[in-house]
C-alpha cells in the first residue's frame, strides 16, 4: 500500500454497488479515507466541506470483488452485497469498516460479533434478506390487457434485485414488471432479461385484462374462506403479515385491484 499522506473527505459515489467497491478501491490505492459516504442522488450539500466524487470504474470494482472473495470469503461478499441494498443511513461506513477489518482477519471476520460495525452489517444484510424473502411471497401480480404481469411493492429496502432474480427463474417465459413505489424504481423482464429503470412518481396504473377482476375476486373469497373462525387471532395475524405489506395485496383490498380505477 502506498504510504502517501491520506486525504480525509466526504465521499460521493454514483449509488451502484460497483461504485461502492470503487470507494473501497480508493481507500486502499488512493489514500482516501471517507468521513462520510453518500450516493449522488441522496446528496445533502454541506457548506463546510466539499464532496469528493469517486468515479465508478468496473475494472477496479472487479478487483475489489475478487479480493473480498479470496481474502475474506464468498459469504462476506454476499453479506456486503445484501447490506448494500439496505436503506440504513450508516450502512456504507459500516460496510467499509467491515471490509477493511475483513482483509485483516480473513474469513474469521464473521466471528467477531462483538464489534458493532460487524453486527451492523450482518443486521442490514439480514433485514434485506428477510424483506426480500417475505415479498417473494407477499407481492401480487395482476395481468394487464397486454398480457404483462404487473406488480407493485412498497418495500423499506431496495429489494428489486433479489425479487427479480427469483421471478426471472420462476416465470421465465412471461413478461412482467415489478414496481417499487417507495424508491420509484422498477424492474422490467421481457421473457429474456431484466432491465432496471427509474419510474416517475404517480405513473398511471395499467389497464387490466378482462378476467382480472374475476380472478382477484376468487382469490379474495378463497382467502376469507380458508380462515377458521374459532381460531381467529389478530395479534398473530399482524405478527405474521405486518400491516405495511397489506396495502399492496389484493386480498386486503390493496392497490392493484382490477375493479378499482385509480390505485
Amino acid at each position, binding site marked *: 500500500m502506498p504510504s502517501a499522506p491520506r486525504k480525509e473527505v466526504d465521499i460521493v459515489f454514483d449509488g451502484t454497488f460497483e461504485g461502492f467497491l470503487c470507494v473501497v478501491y480508493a481507500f486502499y490505492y488512493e489514500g482516501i479515507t471517507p468521513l462520510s459516504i453518500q450516493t449522488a442522488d441522496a446528496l445533502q450539500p454541506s457548506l463546510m466541506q466539499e464532496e469528493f466524487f469517486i468515479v465508478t470504474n468496473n475494472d477496479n470494482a472487479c478487483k475489489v470483488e475478487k479480493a473480498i472473495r479470496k481474502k475474506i470469503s464468498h459469504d462476506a461478499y454476499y453479506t456486503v452485497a445484501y447490506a448494500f441494498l439496505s436503506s440504513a443511513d450508516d450502512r456504507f461506513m459500516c460496510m467499509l469498516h467491515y471490509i477493511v477489518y475483513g482483509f485483516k482477519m480473513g474469513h*474469521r471476520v*464473521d*466471528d*467477531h*460479533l*462483538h464489534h*458493532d460495525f460487524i*453486527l451492523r452489517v450482518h*443486521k442490514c444484510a439480514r433485514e434485506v434478506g428477510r424483506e426480500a*424473502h*417475505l415479498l*417473494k*411471497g*407477499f*407481492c*401480487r*401480480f*395482476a*395481468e394487464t390487457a397486454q398480457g404483462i*404481469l404487473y*406488480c407493485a411493492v412498497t418495500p423499506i429496502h431496495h429489494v428489486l434485485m433479489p425479487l427479480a432474480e427469483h*421471478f426471472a*427463474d*420462476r*416465470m*421465465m*417465459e*412471461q413478461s412482467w414488471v415489478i414496481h417499487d413505489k417507495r424508491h420509484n424504481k422498477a424492474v422490467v423482464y421481457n421473457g429474456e432479461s431484466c432491465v432496471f429503470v427509474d419510474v416517475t412518481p404517480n405513473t398511471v396504473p395499467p389497464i387490466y385484462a378482462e378476467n382480472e377482476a374475476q*380472478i382477484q*375476486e*376468487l*382469490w379474495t*373469497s*378463497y*382467502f376469507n*374462506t*380458508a*380462515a*377458521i*373462525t*374459532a*381460531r*381467529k*387471532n*389478530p*395479534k*398473530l*395475524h399482524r*405478527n*405474521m*403479515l405486518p400491516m405495511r405489506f397489506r396495502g399492496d*395485496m389484493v*386480498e386486503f383490498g390493496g392497490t392493484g385491484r382490477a375493479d378499482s380505477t385509480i390505485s
Partner: protein
Amino acid sequence: MDFSQRLKTLTEGAKYDVACTSSGMNRKAKKGMVGSTEACGICHSFTADGRCISLLKMLINNYCEYDCQYCVNRRSSDIPRASMQPHEVADLTMQFYRRNYIEGLFLSSAVIKSPDYTMEMLIKTLALLRGDTYRFNGYIHVKAIPGADEALIQRLGTLADRMSINIELPSERSLTVLAPDKTKPAILAPMKYVKNKILQSKEETAKYRSAEAFVPAGQSTQLIVGATPEADSKIVHLAQGLYKGYGLRRVFYSAYIPVGNDTMLPRYESKDSYRSPTPAFDTGTGLIDKAYGPILMREHRLYQADWLLRFYGFTAGELFKTEEENLSLHLDPKCHWALRNLEQFPVEVNTADYRTLLRVPGIGQISAERIVKARRASKLDFTNLKKMGIVLKRARYFITCNGKMAEKINFRPESIELRLTDNHAVGPYSQLTLADAAYA
C-alpha cells in the same frame, strides 16, 4: 352452483387440514416450464387465524362415502356438496400461481365411489398440471387415499412433491369408534409403501439422473388432538415412531374444533376442563371463544415438543415420565424438561458444546450457532449476548458467562418456575404468537 360457490365449498372441506408448507424441496425452474420450488418454503399470505397460506388447499370433491365423526365432509354431515373437474382445478392453480398468490397446490379428496376411483381423479388432475397443457413445475402436495391400489399410489407419487396420508386419530381404539370405515393397517400400509418408494427413488436418482423422483419433499401426516382421550405422551411417542420408523418429514397436529352438532364425539363436559373445550363458539360474531385457548395452547405445545424431537436431539422418553402424562400448558416443553433436570444446569456459554447449548431454554438453533461462532473470537458476557440479539428472557436462569449468572437466584425448580411464569401477566395463553406459526 357457480364456480365461486363450488370453490368455497371445496375450500371449507379442506381447511382443517393444517399442513400448508411448501418446503423441503429446492427445484430450479426448467426451460419451457412454469414455476420453481424453494427448500425453505414461502408463505404467500396469512389467514385471520394467523396460519400461513402457501398452497391452494382444496378438495376435488366433498361427496364422502365414509363417516368419520371428526370430519366436516362425513356422509352424515349436513353441508353443501360440490366437485370440480380436473381441468378446472388445474386452470385455477395456474391462474393463482402466475399472480403469485400461491406456491402450489394441496389437493385432497373425499372418498367418492371407491378409494381407487378417487385416486384416479387426483392422478388425472396432477397429470394435467404437469403435462403439456400447463407445464407446471411448482409445488404439489397431495393426500393419498388409504386403501387404494399400490400402483395408483406409485403413479401419484411421481407427480407430487409431497404426499400425506392422515392418521388423524392417535390410537386404534379411537379409530374404530370414530372412523368405522378406516383401520390402522389400511393407513399404515400405504405409509410404509411410500417410505420404501422414497428410499428406492433416492438411490436411483443418485445413480441415474433420468430416474423418476418419487415424492421428493417426503411424506407427512396429521393427528387430531383433543377429539379422543389420548395423552400427549402417547401422541409424542407416536410421532417419534413415525419419524424414525416411517421416515416422515412432518407430523402435523390439529386441535379438534367441533364441526356441526350431529356428532357422536364426546361433548367435552368433564372436570378436566382444559382438555375439554365446550363446543360453543359463535360463528356469527367470529370472536375467539375463550374455550379454545386451552386446546390451541395444547396444539402449540405439541408443535414445540415435535420441534424438540426433530431439531434439538430430544427423545419422547426424556419429555415424559409416564404414558398418561400431558405437556405443561403454562411452561414450554424445554423449560419443563430443564426444571426437571436442573442438575444439568447452569451451562457455561463459553465452553458448552453446541448440543448442550441447544438444550438451554430460550436458546434456539440460530442463537446457539451465533454463540459458538462468536466465542471463538472473544469471551462472551451477558452484554455481548444481548448485543448479538440473543433473547435472555428464559435463558438467563440456565446459563453462566465466565462462571457468573445474570443475577443471584435461588437455584431451585420452584423458584425458577416462578420467575419464568411471573412475567406473563396476561395469562399463559397469550403467547401464541410468532413461534407458533414458525413451527408450521
